[in-house]
């Protein structure tokens, strides 16, 4: 679970760490008021759950109330397209208005899970504000890392190693070590996957201030931390995605024309892949999961078919835990509800497959049955290219 910059900064403040003075605005008026109170210049930062905002024009400076008004107007309720949002961009509903910082230097500090080596990494760079993955390739000499484990956390000598690597002023060494300790503890106690302060400012007065923060919580860890759930912002999800979440469906909207309903993440990806292999484009990723209910299937099917872009659908169920008859019943229910008009190719295998097929057949609805995976995919692609009957 990613959270917004302004949310992460609030957490930092609660940990006793410094962030620029600032507040969130949802309207131009609010932005102006906050700026007046802070004093000029200020920085306006679009709050979306994606990086790359700077280059994409999502971060602006303003020296007067008038400029704040103009900049806020350009950001609020516009769609911001960054390298990470995908081409459709993200709607900006909030901006963070912050006091502009006079700085001496900027660093990078990050904590993350090193999946390959199965350990945690604390990483600093002498030069922050840039993309760290790229920097680690182009200027590795600017970067230093210390590995650590959840049982023991970052040792103080490791924090010292990192602090001295940054050539910090003597008085700042201790402050930065304390900074790392607090964030390290928070990372471990709250099941984070990633925590990045980039840039980390060293101000003219030798204070360490978090310029920007990214916090990504492990979804699997959220159950341990109910206090975090209010931080989740669902407003960036499509209506379909919100609806799917409610029924615990793994759904992701894509840009193609062929809706997919599959059980299992791997098979769902493979179904998308085979559609593309035969020249089609999947409209979504959808894994109904193992413990799915008839109602959830019905919702899933409805989500698929009510997508205006979708011109055909491919249902690919390999019944293991999931019973084919349950899936069939769910499909029929929703197809009746929305009076199915799009062609649906159905491939059922596994548990209770015959009963499932019978239910679909007896429904009298226009399903195409194909037991061969390849043939089913080809058919779905073919049907997606046929213009819909009006």
């Amino acid at each position: 679970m990613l959270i917004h910059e302004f949310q992460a900064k609030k957490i930092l403040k609660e940990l006793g760490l410094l962030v620029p003075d600032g507040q969130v605005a949802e309207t131009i008026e609010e932005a102006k008021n906050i700026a007046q109170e802070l004093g000029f210049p200020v920085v306006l930062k679009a709050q979306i759950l994606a990086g790359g905002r700077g280059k994409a024009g999502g971060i602006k400076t303003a020296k007067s109330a008038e400029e704040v008004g103009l900049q806020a107007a350009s950001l609020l309720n516009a769609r911001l397209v960054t390298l990470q949002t995908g081409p459709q961009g993200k709607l900006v509903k909030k901006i963070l208005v912050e006091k502009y910082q006079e700085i001496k230097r900027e660093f990078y500090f990050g904590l993350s899970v090193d999946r390959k080596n199965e350990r945690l990494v604390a990483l600093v760079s002498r030069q922050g504000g840039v993309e760290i993955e790229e920097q680690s390739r182009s200027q590795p000499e600017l970067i230093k890392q210390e590995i650590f484990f959840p049982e023991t956390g970052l040792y103080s000598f490791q924090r010292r190693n990192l602090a001295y690597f940054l050539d910090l002023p003597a008085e700042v060494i201790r402050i930065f070590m304390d900074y790392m300790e607090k964030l390290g503890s928070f990372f471990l106690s709250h099941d984070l996957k990633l925590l990045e302060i980039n840039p980390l400012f060293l101000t003219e007065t030798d204070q360490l201030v978090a310029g920007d923060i990214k916090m990504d919580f492990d979804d699997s860890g959220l159950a341990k931390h109910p206090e975090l759930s209010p931080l989740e912002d669902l407003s960036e999800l499509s209506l379909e995605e919100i609806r799917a979440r409610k029924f615990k469906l793994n759904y992701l909207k894509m840009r193609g024309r062929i809706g997919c309903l599959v059980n299992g993440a791997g098979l769902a990806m493979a179904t998308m892949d085979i559609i593309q292999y035969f020249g089609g484009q999947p409209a979504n990723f959808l894994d109904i999961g193992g413990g799915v209910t008839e109602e959830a299937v019905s919702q899933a099917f409805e989500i698929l078919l009510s997508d205006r872009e979708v011109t055909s659908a491919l249902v690919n169920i390999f019944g293991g835990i999931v019973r084919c008859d349950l899936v069939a019943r769910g499909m029929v229910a929703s197809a009746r509800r929305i009076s199915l008009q799009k062609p649906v190719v159905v491939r059922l295998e596994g548990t209770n497959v015959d009963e499932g097929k019978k239910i679909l057949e007896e429904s009298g609805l226009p399903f195409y049955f194909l037991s061969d995976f390849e043939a089913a995919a080809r058919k779905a692609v073919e049907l997606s290219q046929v213009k819909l009957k009006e």
Partner: protein
Amino acid sequence: MSILLYEHSRILVQGITGQQGSFHTEKMLAYGTKIVAGVTPGKGGQRHLGVPIFNTVEQAVRAEQPDISVIFVPPLAAAEAIMEASHAGLKLVVCITEGIPVLDMLKVKNFLKERGTLLIGPNTPGIISPGKSKVGIMPAHIHQPGPVGIISRSGTLTYEAVYQLTNLGLGQSTAVGIGGDPIVGLKFTELLEMFKNDDQTQAVLLIGEIGGTAEEETAEYLKSSYYPKPVAAYVAGLTAPPGKRLGHAGAIIEGQQGTAAEKLKALKIAGVETIENPARLGKAIQKLLMGKN
């Protein structure tokens, strides 16, 4: 003679009285799996589906000497369940549970490393050695004994592969789901090493997916070990968008890392028969086996 799981393997089920545990214990028993004990704290002394239940793994081990434990406990208790099994001396643990926090799994891995316990999963369908035993949740009827070893990060996609193989008359030596989480126990390389030494296995099918670098490491291993048996691989997620989790906690392209295209490329360079059409998983293996004979 298959890997990891044999006809005589004695199985312990942790979380045997839960809904999932019950359901699959019944199916495993039906397949002939030797389930010798179950663990549910507080229900020790009872029997469930004919299997004796114990309060702790330790007690179960003392009474019934299981070789393998399979875990069906909820996500926040599962890390401890794995460690409990290891602590009690089990040498192989299969964890079906999905949704164990990553930091918990890092601790588990450190714990197991010191004790030499092997882990399959978590978030895996389990292991099946067709005709011998099944420890997991896969539909048994699609399997048949034969020469193909399968290692997969996915569940249903493995069933698809097995189904294709069986329909072509090609049985499986052992099919192992390594799990769809970012941190799992045994990976492709360790299992490939086992299949290498297994007489029954004549070819291996790998099923990867986006996220992480397990496939790239596998390519490295296959190259440097001059792997002696033919290997085919499919990697799901060529169409997956970056930065999004696709079902499995581990199936996510992070930055430029973890794309299916890169993985396929690495495997191809390593001499693996890469498969782009997931409807041809069986056919690809068939071709390899024919080329071999």
